[in-house]
């Protein structure tokens, strides 16, 4: 089925009149619908992260104390005559029961939503009369804006973490595999020790010693550093195996016969030959970082309020009571799910493209 589709895609691209389509166009055509959807999802999430102030409607920390746990509001299209006020409007919510946090819509009044105003994609006239597209949290903060800002942490933790752990893994693995001998032995025993530590508890223990007074940015980098420190070992071992097999390839011997130094052979022959695998493995390990950060934040050890991450937004959903009454607080989970699945699909696709032998 899958093979059939890729064959058809192949035939289509072969029969296409513009035989020399650019690399991206060709890849796009060959990708399955799932992969395209994943790519679009990730592009969108990174766009959210890059331009959070634009996409968010409000300051993510602004608390509207009169409207805690407000449900998502319906959006209405304005009548043509009212377009001078705004294309869309919503009926404002009024809290009718403070104890039960019951809201009713005030159908007589309208809050107009303005597009591209005050540097936001969409927002209302003032924060005191807000439009909560995805509802608000217990402190009356706009969940949508917080998800947008939270994407910064959640999307970057994966990229940065993989960047660090993979550069460590590639360097250490390539050195170990190429040099061999005592260095190899030491590095591999060290990595075994590290791999035998139960990683999530180790992560918890390390995260627990992050001082509570640290800034969000510093905490973020600490979390990335801790997770990278835990995850380089397994990767370095695989790279080491590949490096030591490449080491005895005739082209490495030929390079030595031409007078290439060790450093040159490692950077020029060993690392490029493991890079295809590394890219695939990196893509497939990003979800681990995203989930790791989410788990830490969920337990309150990660990014601290009032800063938002998808993980700490979900922390409110830990309480079944909360969840039953305000189900919209689960929405950040959908974002985590989409991001993780997208990276997995994309990674699988990259593996099929870069390493056809493992497809199956």
């Amino acid at each position, binding site marked *: 089925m899958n093979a059939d589709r890729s064959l058809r895609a192949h035939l289509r691209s072969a029969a296409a009149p513009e035989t020399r389509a650019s690399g991206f166009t060709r890849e796009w055509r060959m990708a399955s619908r799932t992969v395209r959807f994943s790519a679009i999802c990730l592009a969108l999430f990174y766009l959210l992260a890059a331009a959070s102030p634009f996409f968010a409607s409000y300051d993510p920390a602004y608390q509207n104390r009169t409207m805690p746990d407000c449900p998502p509001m319906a959006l209405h299209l304005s009548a043509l005559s009212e377009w001078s006020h705004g294309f869309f409007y919503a009926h404002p919510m009024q809290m009718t029961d403070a104890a039960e946090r019951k809201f009713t819509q005030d159908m007589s009044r309208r809050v107009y939503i303005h597009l591209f105003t005050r540097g936001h994609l969409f927002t209302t006239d003032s924060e005191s009369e807000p439009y909560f597209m995805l509802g608000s949290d217990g402190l009356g903060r706009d969940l949508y804006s917080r998800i947008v800002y939270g994407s910064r942490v959640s999307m970057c933790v994966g990229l940065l973490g993989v960047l660090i752990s993979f550069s460590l893994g590639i360097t250490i693995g390539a050195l170990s595999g190429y040099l*061999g*001998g005592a260095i190899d032995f030491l590095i591999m025993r060290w990595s075994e020790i590290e791999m035998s530590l139960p990683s999530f508890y180790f992560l918890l223990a390390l995260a627990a010693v992050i001082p509570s007074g640290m800034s969000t940015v510093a905490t973020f980098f600490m979390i990335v550093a801790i997770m990278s420190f835990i995850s380089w070992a397994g990767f370095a071992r695989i790279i080491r195996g590949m490096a030591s097999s490449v080491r005895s*390839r*005739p*082209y490495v*011997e*030929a*390079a*030595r*016969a*031409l*007078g*290439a*130094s060790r450093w*040159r052979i490692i950077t*020029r*022959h060993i690392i*490029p*030959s493991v890079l295809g695998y590394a890219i695939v493995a990196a893509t497939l390990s990003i979800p681990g970082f995203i989930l790791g950060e989410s788990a830490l934040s969920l337990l309150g050890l990660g990014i601290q309020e009032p800063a938002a991450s998808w993980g700490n937004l979900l922390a409110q959903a830990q309480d079944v009571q909360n969840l039953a009454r305000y189900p919209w607080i689960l929405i950040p989970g959908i974002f985590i799910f989409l991001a993780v699945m997208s990276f997995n699909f994309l990674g699988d696709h990259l593996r099929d493209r870069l390493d056809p032998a493992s497809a199956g």
Partner: protein
Amino acid sequence: MKPLLEVKSLRTSFFTEAGEVRAVDGVSFSVAPGKLTGLVGESGSGKTASVLSIMRLLPESARIVGGEIIFEDRNLLELSEPEMRHVRGAQIAMIFQEPMTSLNPVFTIGSQIGEAIRLHQQTSRAETRHRTIEALRMVGIADPERRTDDYPHQLSGGMRQRVMIAMALSCNPKVLMADEPTTALDVTIQAQILDLIRELQGRLGLAVILVTHDLGIVAEYADDVTILYSARVMEQAPSAELFRNPLNPYTRGLLESIPGVDGARHHRLRAIPGSIPSALNPPSGCRFHPRCPRAIPDCSAIDPPFEAKAPNHYAACIRV
């Protein structure tokens, strides 16, 4: 003519768990500029170990335990590793048996030759490209301007070996060592590659060391021949002299075991009985005596001296 590269009683051993294996045991030969020396022997006779010793590219388990390798009045065995790196590729270059795998599949051939040039010389990007194309042209690759951007998988085996030669010669070395350069190629391509090596040898004044097990190739291309057997030199002479007048019974055995087209039809092809001895536990005396048709009791007792039996013709055998 004064030899350019001289190997003097070289001894190289592999140190294995079973003990010391003498892969090269007192081998001497030399090569002069513009000449081609053939190094002939069976598998395990120490041909490749000799060549790798010259480059000092032996595997970790092996060590050079004695002898001298004199190149331009310097003993290569006394150079430091960084000094040796300037000799490899720049002074002495080497091509290997498998052209299919001796090129890195992930880079274009042009970038690999360019890399080889820049290992030893500081050249600009344009200059490197120009020299790369010239190197490809020199080894007879058609349309080198386009070919330089090809990947190894786009080339045939013969073309890849040409690329390897271009790469080896890109820094104008004085010595080229070819370790069975044509074993993996079919016969017609074999002849093309060897003709190319001979042509370059004459044109550039290269000293070539050709390692092979094929006496036919040696007869056709070599100026001098060194016959190795079980880590030792059995016979050494100018090629014409050796084939006209083989002295060592081993050499004779080799020559007799070549099938001819003009010989008597219904005769069995003659072969040397037995097989090459274990390098771990070689026979005493002459290494060849257990298989030698002319062996006498003394052969197992006396280590035959390697001496001149005729002008320019050396052999290690007490029976000639």
